């Protein structure tokens, strides 16, 4: 991305729809038309939009699983090193490798690492934080976090043609269409 703040380059075409149902139908049409660099914007997650947008399965589960395994094995390895190898101390006659007593800490660290995986993995997959976004140049886009339902097809899509995109949106019943510049 260029560092100058001139909004000259076309980023995409943004269309507003009147309600969740219209957005759902519109995104189905966008998928049918063969676009893949597009996104919908809504103030809340809409039921079934993943199917309408033909989204692949989220990879988040695998990220979390990886972190969970790391937390689990890490916790056991840490305790094993500290209480069995490095400085074994006899505590009330229990074995050094006191498996039942290690369950709480193992559990907590597994959960902690998994939660890190879930939260930071989600931000990572979503490309956040991203404080500057071409869409913020559009005044109407404010409504996306209030009661607006938008679809944006990006100019970087191989099939992108401005007039065709506008036509598609109009047919889908968009209430408002405008260009987004970066």
């Amino acid at each position, binding site marked *: 991305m260029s560092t100058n703040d001139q909004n000259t380059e076309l980023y995409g075409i943004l269309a507003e729809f009147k*309600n*969740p*149902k*219209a957005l*759902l139908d519109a995104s189905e049409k966008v998928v049918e038309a063969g676009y893949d660099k597009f*996104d*919908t*914007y*809504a*103030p*809340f*997650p*809409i*039921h*079934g*939009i*993943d199917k309408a*947008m033909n*989204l692949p399965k*989220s990879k*988040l*589960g695998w990220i979390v699983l990886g972190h969970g395994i790391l937390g689990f094995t890490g916790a056991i390895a840490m*305790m094993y090193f*500290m*209480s069995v190898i*490095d*400085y074994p101390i006899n*505590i*009330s006659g229990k074995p050094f490798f*006191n498996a039942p*007593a*290690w369950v*709480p*800490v193992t*559990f*907590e*660290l597994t*959960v*902690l690492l*998994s*939660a*890190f995986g*879930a*939260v930071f993995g*989600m*931000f990572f*997959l*979503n490309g*956040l*934080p*991203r*404080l*500057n*976004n071409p869409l913020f140049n559009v005044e109407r*886009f*404010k409504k996306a*976090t*209030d*009661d607006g339902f938008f679809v944006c097809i990006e100019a970087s899509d191989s099939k992108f043609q401005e007039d065709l995109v506008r036509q598609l949106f109009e047919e889908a*019943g968009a209430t408002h269409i405008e260009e987004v510049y970066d």
Partner: protein
Amino acid sequence: MSKYEYIPEPALVKGNHSFSSITKLVTDVNLRPTPKPWYAAMLLANAFLGVFLVAVAYLIWEGTGIWGLMNPVGWGWAIINFVWWVGIGHAGTLISAILFLFRQDWRTAINRFAEAMTIFAVICALMFPGIHVGRIWVIYWVFPIPNQMAMWPNFNSPLLWDVFAVSTYFTVSLLFWYVGLVPDLATLRDKAKDKVRKIAYGIAALGWTGSGRNWWNYEKAYMILAGLATPLVLSVHTIVSFDFAVSMIPGWHTTIFPPYFVAGAVFSGFAMVLTLMIICRKIYGMEDIMTDDHMEKMNIIILVTGSMVGFAYMMEFFIAWYSGVEYEKAIFMLRATGPYAWAYWIMMLCNVISPQVFWSKKLRRNVNFTFFISIVVNIGMWFERFVITVTSLANDYLPSSWDYFSPTIWDVLTYVGTFGIFFTLFLAFLRFLPMIAIAEIKAVMPQADPHNYDEETQEYHPHEVVVPKPQAETV
């Protein structure tokens, strides 16, 4: 017609709200000029905070001798207050995580609020293990980081499990809360007029756009977090109960402690959420979202968990007798009839008897009464921890060392001072962050479901429940 009346499901949001009116209702609180009473309340909270700081400063200067600790009660108000605050914290995670997994959509009205309460309550709780060690500057010894004592924490100690449990709980709750906040912070960013708010909310919102692809990962993350937080919240008070239950002290060592502590925690937590909710919805006019139906549901949970706690009290008493162990029998008799009998009966009255009034539907829906009971319950739960901690220690195996525990003024001031921390943070939360999960409440409104729209015209067409006429009289 029928002997029984069918009660249909109440709507989650009362009044005739649209998406934008919900946004306005919630964000106005944060964006309009600060009301004068808020400053007054904040000042009062800060005064209590000041009390806390003084009490802690004196404690660090002088040592834990300023508290009422003595032989044999070496574990006094610090542990009681710690357990009490952590317990209160449980409701937030329960509401946000467990009710989410159980698809209880009504949670959306109160989850933000309850999660905030959780975080602040856990902060208050964390103060006590922090300061009770006396030498707070070496508190980092409890973490497994290398130091030149060549010493590692003792992983066989339930107190160390506590360190991991409570800090994990705090971290995960904070993350969960923040993840929930991100879309709403974006809403505030877009609604804010002045530069400072725009920048502050803008940074906090991380550039959230409400993209469908983002929501897709977001919902997955939220689901996973709920799945993680559910066992976590159970584990935390379980591990707190281990602090007591892995020992051999009569009255502490009993196997029902883990679930019983969890039930008690949820019980007191819901009571605290109710206390705060009833005040806030009145002041901020949120009665459309935090409805009487919510209050009723929470009162049912209070009734259930209160009864579970009562069940545990009964089991403890019965098994103490059944076990045939002299010490167990003695400690429970002493609890009910000994020097701390007053505390025991306060606990019984507040925790077991008082919630039973919620069998009455009328009382469940009575706002003032609920408010009263919610405070009674929290008093009762404080006394539960008092009874457990103090009675078992004051009258342990060796009668010659029995003694009567009395707190000092510093015990009281430290405890009262934590309310200063709690309310300072809570007031700041009410002022600067949306107290209701805007995006989530929108998502459970009937308008949000594409199935409630007509296929052809795409017009909103809500589904209506028609109660059928009975075909025949009930036998």
